[in-house]
């Protein structure tokens, strides 16, 4: 009762207040409504409602009802009733203020806008909502429609190009630049360094399309190409070498990712592989150092080192978001990260897609691990590569030619002395019919009858060794765990310290259990005795700490020899369930027919020669005089390791290889936190995990509002049909993203060719290289973009092919306005002309500004960016950056005039020209690749004379001032 009274009072007050205008108001609203139903309604339905209340509610603005219209959206109020001049909507429609509406379309005709203005002026009345079901507009989950898939960026590539088409068929080109300009342009664009005067003159004097192509090829093959282009990718990868946040600790081993990018570009790694390895190199090729280095991409983002319990989970979701969002921007120019808290406001990316993809990173953590980089270091060391090749050729030549003669004479000799040398060794080595690791380790057989494990090393493993029982008279088994250089501390185990922990050994013959007893071992770790192997306790084990790098053995008597029947399957099952990764790295099993009490661990082995002899005997017997090539090859294979000459040649090769082979190096990688040791937070207590077991759907991105567990999935809009899903989730993402049949491959190709085009032509075909979505720009030349993307995929993702195609086009050679070099190229240019540059490639960088290496080797510490780099618009390295800004500030000029390092380079430059007969002409050629004009020459002569006078006739100082001036002038850092 009271409420209704208040309401009535209120309404009365309202009426009495408004009564003066009441009639006027009513008639205006009626007029407004008429305009609405006759015209405005149609306009809104045609041009607006699709994105503002229909299938999408972009920018939070829903104009399907009058209420929504007047409420506005994320950008604030859009329409003020009766005030068209104050309604931002009108300025959007008139394209006098952004966002222009409708977006990416031509402006509405003026008469229509005037109608809308009038409609607003009269009160913006509706007759009914624009859509029938306006109740549930905001709540329904986003659906990805066929229309969404047909958006230009998500649609399949157009492929109806006539054969023989080239870039210049797509674009109209102006006049070509002079050869002198082109030489300079090519050197800077491809290597980030200036050409020497000689190189310029060579190109100018011998100018032809052929010499242009040759220079392009030459520069694409230069080492400096990778150093130049890697830096473009590092911007995109938000690469830095410190954690950021509180303490900004250094990531001492993060630079390997930078080196990976340089190497990959130099060796022209196919782009799809380049992408796959960055997402899942650790899963796809764990033994390849490049693949491991590539995973630094995922972990290049910031990482808070001090967190509190209440923040821990949000921080983990932030970290995963960083990986996913960067992958989206860098590889697909898609702002996936925008779908974290709500369905993407502009692009067809439902929040569900976001969390499904996010789940791929659930267990992904940073870790510093040891990697053998030997195979990489050979590259770039031509001398050693030659030596290795020579040694290998010598060995293989011998194997193909001289070996057969040696075998014949050996075979003859042994048959003559056979009777005399017959031995009865204590232990006979068993060779398996099959040897399998449950956890997926792979074994390779060694010449001495052992089996070396490599590849996967799961936390717990089971080896199954199957052979034929060799004789009825089995009395004992010997199990050897042997050292090998491939393992930590030389093994014999694959644990992170080289240890083993064998928890269980079971043997059966013909399915009957063989009872083992009286175990003995060469060594037993405290509390981990050999007896634990046969104690029927799966967790207790035999281990060897600290006796690493040595061969070890355990021997067991057989209690029931009668159960061993020759020819039946003899099965050994070894279990490792005691400690993480403590699996035997090199295994050998033997039997003995001797009395157990007489046996020792190691002596009396059948020698490699005896083993080989036995095998050869068997083969020859079985062949019954029928020697064919196949058998000959097989015999030589077995004989090879015991041939003295071959062994000598082989060990020589091994020795040379080992000069570089063992480069065990710490590398920061990203991998499964269950398998590697995660990098810890500074304040981590046990209650703060490194990662959580599962990734949940979150409401509004809030870890306090968890939904169900998210299972791996891909962006629906980029998925057609079935995309194979491997068990490993990041590999699945990597395969999907490069899949040009059913996955995101077409967009992946569009994005990278656009980036390459951008760096050569100054502006991408799509001007927003990190956003191909609705908010981004449209391609200025869609056919060219698709054709280039097609070329990339057709040529097996060959990036240098795309570089070459662009560089050899008229479009690239056309005249253009000068462009400022980036920070690195500005400094490298100065270093190059000074001839002070240290060309050492790869390895840890430094923060020291006086460093003389190329600028890509500056360490990137997030809170201490190298000032000269930062001054010239270095990226902030916090998020992916597709295009650097170019600013011009006095602090940049101060570097040129006052920075001692810059002066040092000017002095180096001066030294270079000071002895020359015509130092000014020489300087112009070095700095600008051309000769000075008469004007310039006169000015230079006058300047140097004056400076020399004021420097008490010190010509070198005057020349340094002159060189400093050349380096400060615009022509030095603006390249046409």
């Amino acid at each position, binding site marked *: 009762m009271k409420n209704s009274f208040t309401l009535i009072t209120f309404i009365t007050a309202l009426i009495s207040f408004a009564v003066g205008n009441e009639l006027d108001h009513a008639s205006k609203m009626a007029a407004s409504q008429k305009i609405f139903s006759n015209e405005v309604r149609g306009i809104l339905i045609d041009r607006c409602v699709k994105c503002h209340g229909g299938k999408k509610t972009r920018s939070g603005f829903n104009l399907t009802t009058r209420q929504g219209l007047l409420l506005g959206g994320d950008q604030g109020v859009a329409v003020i009733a009766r005030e068209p001049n104050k309604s931002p909507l009108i300025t959007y429609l008139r394209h006098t*203020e952004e966002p222009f509406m409708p977006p990416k379309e031509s402006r509405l005709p003026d008469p229509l806008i005037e109608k809308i203005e009038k409609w607003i002026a009269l009160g913006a009345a509706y007759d009914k909502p624009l859509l029938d079901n306006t109740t549930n507009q905001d709540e329904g989950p986003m659906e990805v429609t066929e229309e969404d898939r047909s958006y230009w960026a998500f649609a399949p590539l157009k492929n109806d190009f006539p054969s023989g088409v080239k870039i210049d068929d797509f674009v109209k080109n102006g006049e070509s630049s002079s050869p002198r300009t082109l030489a300079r342009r090519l050197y800077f664009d491809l290597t980030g360094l200036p050409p020497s005067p000689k190189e310029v003159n060579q190109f100018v004097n011998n100018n032809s399309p052929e010499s242009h192509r040759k220079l392009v090829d030459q520069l694409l093959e230069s080492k400096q190409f990778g150093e130049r282009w890697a830096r473009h990718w590092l911007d995109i990868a938000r690469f830095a070498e410190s954690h950021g946040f509180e303490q900004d600790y250094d990531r001492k081993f993060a630079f390997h990712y930078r080196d990976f990018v340089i190497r990959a570009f130099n060796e022209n790694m196919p782009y799809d592989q380049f992408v796959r390895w960055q997402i899942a190199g650790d899963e796809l090729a764990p033994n390849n150092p490049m693949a491991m280095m590539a995973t630094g991409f995922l972990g290049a983002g910031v990482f808070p080192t001090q967190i509190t319990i209440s*923040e821990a989970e949000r921080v983990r979701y932030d970290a995963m978001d960083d990986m996913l969002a960067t992958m989206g921007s860098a590889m697909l120019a898609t702002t996936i990260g925008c779908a974290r808290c709500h369905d993407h406001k502009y692009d067809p990316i439902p929040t569900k897609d976001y969390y499904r993809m996010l789940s791929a990173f659930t267990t992904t953590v940073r870790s510093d691990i040891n990697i053998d980089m030997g195979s990489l270091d050979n590259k770039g060391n031509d001398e050693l590569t030659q030596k290795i090749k020579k040694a290998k050729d010598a060995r293989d030549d011998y194997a193909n030619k001289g070996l057969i003669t040696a075998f014949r004479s050996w075979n003859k000799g042994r048959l003559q002395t056979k009777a005399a040398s017959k031995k009865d060794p204590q232990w006979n080595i068993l060779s398996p019919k099959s040897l399998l690791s449950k956890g997926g380790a792979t074994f390779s057989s060694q010449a001495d009858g052992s089996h070396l494990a490599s590849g996967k090393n799961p936390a717990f493993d089971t080896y199954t060794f199957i052979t034929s029982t060799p004789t009825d008279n089995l009395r004992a088994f010997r199990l050897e765990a042997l050292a090998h250089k491939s393992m930590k501390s030389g093994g014999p185990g694959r644990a992170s310290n080289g240890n083993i922990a064998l928890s269980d050994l079971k043997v059966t013959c013909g399915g009957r259990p063989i009872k083992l007893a009286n175990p003995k071992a060469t060594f037993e770790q405290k509390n981990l005795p050999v007896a634990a192997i046969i104690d029927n306790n799966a967790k207790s084990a035999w281990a060897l700490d600290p006796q690493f790098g040595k061969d070890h053995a355990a021997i067991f008597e057989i209690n029931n020899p009668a159960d061993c029947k020759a020819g039946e399957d003899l099965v050994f099952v070894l279990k490792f369930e005691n400690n993480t990764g403590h699996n035997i790295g090199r295994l050998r099993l033997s039997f003995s027919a001797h009395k157990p009490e007489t046996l020792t661990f190691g002596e009396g082995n059948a020698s490699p020669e005896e083993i080989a002899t036995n095998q050869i005997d068997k083969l020859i017997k079985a062949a019954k005089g029928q020697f064919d090539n196949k058998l000959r090859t097989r015999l030589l294979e077995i004989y090879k390791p015991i041939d003295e000459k071959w062994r000598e040649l082989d060990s020589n090769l091994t020795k040379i290889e080992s000069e570089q082979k063992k480069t065990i190096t710490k590398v920061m990688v990203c991998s499964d936190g269950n398998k590697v040791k995660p990098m810890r937070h500074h304040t981590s207590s046990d209650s703060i995990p490194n990662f959580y077991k599962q990734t949940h759907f979150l409401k509004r991105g809030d870890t306090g509002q968890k939904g169900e567990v998210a299972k791996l999935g891909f962006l629906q809009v980029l998925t057609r049909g079935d995309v194979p899903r491997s068990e490993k989730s990041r590999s699945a993402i990597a395969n999907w993203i490069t899949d040009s049949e059913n996955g995101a491959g077409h967009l992946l190709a569009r994005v990278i060719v656009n980036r390459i085009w951008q760096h050569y032509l100054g502006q991408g075909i799509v001007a927003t290289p990190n956003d191909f979505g609705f908010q981004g720009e449209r391609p200025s030349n869609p056919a060219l973009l698709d054709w280039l993307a097609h070329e990339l995929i057709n040529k097996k993702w060959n990036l240098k092919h795309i570089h070459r195609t662009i560089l050899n086009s008229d479009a690239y050679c056309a005249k253009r306005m000068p462009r400022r070099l980036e920070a690195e190229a500005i400094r490298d240019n100065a270093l190059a002309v000074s001839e002070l540059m240290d060309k050492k490639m790869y390895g840890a960088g430094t923060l020291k500004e006086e460093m003389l290496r190329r600028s890509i080797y500056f360490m990137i510490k997030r809170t201490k960016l190298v000032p000269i780099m930062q001054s010239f618009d270095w990226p902030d390295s916090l998020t992916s950056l597709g295009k650097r800004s170019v600013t011009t*500030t006095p602090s940049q000029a101060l570097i040129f005039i006052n920075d001692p390092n810059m002066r040092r380079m000017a002095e180096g430059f001066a030294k270079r020209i000071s002895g020359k007969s015509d130092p000014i002409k020489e300087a112009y050629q070095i700095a600008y690749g051309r000769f000075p004009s008469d004007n310039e020459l006169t000015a230079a002569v006058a300047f140097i004379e004056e400076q020399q006078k004021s420097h008490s006739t010190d010509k070198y100082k005057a020349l340094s001032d002159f060189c400093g001036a050349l380096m400060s002038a615009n022509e030095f850092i603006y390249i046409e």
Partner: protein
Amino acid sequence: MIKDNHCGRIEKAFNRRELLQRAGGGIGMLALNSLLIGKGEANTNIGPNPMAARHPHGFGNAKRVIWLFINGGPSHVDTWDYKPGLEKANGKKLEGFDNTTGFFDKAVGPLLKSPFEFKQYGNSGMWASSIFPHLSQHVDKMAFIKSFHTKSNNHSPALFMANTGVPRMSNPCVGSWVTYGLGTENQNLPAFVVMSDPLNRGLPKGHAANWGSGFLPGAFQGTWVRSKGEPIPNLKRIAGLSDQQQRAQLDFVGKLNAIHEKRYPEETQLTARIKSFELAYRMQQEAPECFEIGNEPEHIKSLYGIGEKRCAHFARQCLMARRMIERGVRFVQIYSGGMENARSWDGHGDIRKNHTQFAGETDQPIAGLLADLEQRGMLDETLVIWGGEFGRLPVSQLSGGKPTGRDHNPHAGCYWFAGGGTRGGTSYGETDEVGHKAAVDTVEIHDIHATILHLLGMDHKRLTYLHSGRRFRLTDVSGRVIHDVVA
């Protein structure tokens, strides 16, 4: 490539090729091409100088900002937010308190009344604690916000919140947004200057990211002034080069550039770079003078407390701030205290000792700054901000078993504004009875940011920058101007 901006003024965007798509119309207040360089050089078209002064539309008194960043988490209940309720409840347990609110969940003690005496001051009768004998004389200039709360209980995320609006290391800070929006009035000095603790107590957590420009162009980042040696890099001519020799060299560079420029008459970037050398030459002359406080008269030095050992370092910084502001620097931020614990206002162990010390370091210098700005008639156009990343808890933190410290409190904190068109002698918002949580008219950092921009004449919803497919704002999707503190 002419676009209209939100102000309805026609202007060329940033740099027509490089930044068009990013800045677009959303660059907001920027008139980046038809610009005014300071000091009366009207309407010189200098191309893409990001620092040229720009004029927002007609509201807002403030032209400059000095933010005294009270680093480490100043305790609101021991400074400006008087809580008689806490006095009464002293020694009692705070019912329902979540022990993980602060940093140390295992050292939570009972409620602890302030060890300092509170009194009312000025015509407005604002409360202040006894640690501020000088500042308490200026309460009629201050507009207090006593219901601030934030999102993190941890220094660096909370510092990032206070400076950038997000608890992560990613976005531009307030000073960068302000210089992006307004440029600067003196091209010979940096637009945005940051001073940190000069007593070797470290940088605030998160270091330079607190004054970083994030995705905005690098030109908008704060210039960190070194406390020893050359205040900013490359101001000194290289050894062996006289002014005359350098002048001759610059003139020669000018000649080379003039010849080069004729080949590309339409390229404004080249012209801008030519000018930048002249600006650099002048900055080299003017900046050292600006940082040099030796020539200030004695009575000014003593007003700031430069003779007092306990506060001399901060006094110098405050006086330098005034000199910069006077010469047209747009935004100055001074951090009181270094890293954490006893090195800043982070009074975990002993709140009485900690806050007595840090109030002692800053009380007279800040009071001197306010008085000096006022007597020079600059306070109206200079917004002075006092505040840090969060407040502290009303419950004690046990230190050696004794209830003497206070832990971080993300739920409540206190700010004050003075000058720059704010309403002095007012207070907005309240915490609960004991000062545990903001309770009445609660204020987020976005609201404080929105108010700062408003006082400077900028609409926080319109100052935007397109990055990674999104139009970013300092206030993200939040922010509300606190009109109660605006005069």
